[in-house]
């Protein structure tokens, strides 16, 4: 399949799902909704892999902005979506050494505590405020993705005392460059960053790979591949903590969660197969553009300008 055909197929799936959403609730049969959600989630799954963007960060603003579901339920589904994807990928990453349990554990502890706090804040605040804040957060994420740098193998001088005490160093085998030795620094600053990441993940139901990777890679100095892998492992812990809050509050609707999770996971498998032929650079730009649209829509909806 050519790059253009891939892009058209993804766009077609997304808009066919979104078109279903355009019709007010009672006018269509109930089963159109899970079907529409499945199609949109499938397209987002493909897009997420090809664009290197987490599915959750696309799902919550898009579905929250363009579908009639209340944001409380969309955030619950978004969190479960991010959690399921991370759970599926983490075992392979751990076995290969591309995720480090040792590196993740202290950061996950802080992030999981604050993700619970974030989820509680999200339920306590008026939905208009959460929707507006979500919109502006998504726009900031889009800017971060557009401008953000990355470093395959950052140089780390001496470790700070906490990094050394936690023995945050190790080895992994990279098929491209052989055995890679890594160590990190600035762990206190990273713990503070993960406290903030946890709040955002819990509050908005977003997977937080967009923030995890820069903190691990650029702040702590972990190699990029290890950062990406460890980010997935971190999501399994941080999102689990917040997901319990949503589950106990009654904000997890299986009619939304199951088609979303199944759709994104199937889409991600197709996306992985298309990686070799798809124009990933352009797809990533398209995904960022989609984030901007979703962010603007969410902010305007929250402000009551575009309801």
């Amino acid at each position, binding site marked *: 399949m050519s790059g253009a055909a891939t892009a058209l197929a993804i766009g077609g799936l997304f808009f066919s799902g979104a078109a279903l959403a355009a019709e007010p609730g009672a006018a269509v049969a*109930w089963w159109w909704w899970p079907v529409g959600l499945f199609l949109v989630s499938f397209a987002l799954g493909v897009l997420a892999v090809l664009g290197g963007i987490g599915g959750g960060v696309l799902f919550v603003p898009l579905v929250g902005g363009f579908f009639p579901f*209340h944001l409380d339920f969309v955030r619950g589904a978004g969190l479960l979506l991010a959690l399921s994807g991370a*759970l599926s990928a983490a*075992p392979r990453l751990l076995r290969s050494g591309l995720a480090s349990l040792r590196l993740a554990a202290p950061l996950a502890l802080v992030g999981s505590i604050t993700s*619970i706090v974030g989820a509680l804040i999200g339920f306590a605040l008026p939905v208009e405020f959460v929707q507006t804040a979500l919109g502006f957060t998504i726009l900031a994420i889009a800017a971060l993705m557009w401008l953000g740098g990355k470093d395959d193998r950052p140089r780390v001088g001496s470790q700070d005392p906490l990094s050394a005490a936690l023995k945050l160093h190790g080895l992994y085998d990279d098929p491209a460059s052989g055995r890679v030795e890594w160590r990190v620094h600035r762990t206190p600053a990273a713990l503070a960053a993960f406290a903030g990441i946890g709040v955002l993940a819990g509050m908005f139901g977003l997977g937080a790979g967009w923030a995890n990777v820069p903190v691990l890679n650029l702040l702590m100095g972990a190699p990029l591949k290890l950062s990406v892998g460890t980010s997935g492992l971190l999501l399994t812990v941080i999102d*689990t903590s917040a997901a319990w809050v949503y589950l106990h509050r*009654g904000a997890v609707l*299986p009619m939304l969660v*199951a088609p979303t999770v199944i759709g994104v996971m199937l889409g991600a498998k197709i996306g992985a197969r298309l990686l070799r032929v798809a124009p990933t650079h352009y797809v990533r730009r398209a995904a960022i553009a989609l984030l901007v649209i979703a962010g603007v829509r969410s902010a305007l909806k929250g402000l009551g300008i575009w309801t």
Partner: protein
Amino acid sequence: MAVPEEQQLYARWLDVASRVGLAVLAAMFLVYVFKLVPAHVPVEDLPALWTLPLEQYLEQTGAPTGWGWLTLLGRGEYLSLIGVTILCLATLLCYVRLVIALVAKGDRLYAAIAAAQIVVLCVAALGFLAGGH
């Protein structure tokens, strides 16, 4: 070996738990969506309800919070929640196994970190902070 033994162990447990969780979620959702068992909220009524804020949804449907859904396990939507719960329990189970491995290895610092994580996950899972029991 580049990958520590406890990490391999954690990966094995996580793999099994997440596969089981996803399989149960998908299977139970089919049972729910094809109406093989009755639902607590008829699926035809959902489009008028999922637009409501959570509090109103709970009020109008009488849907339970916390672990209350366990009393409605014969209903389609709550069967599906079994899969979601397994996914949410996966990390907790892995951490319990991890602590045992770390204690056996003599890595007290990381055993303490993992134990603290278990406490956080248990508090979240028990629903004390979420306001549902």
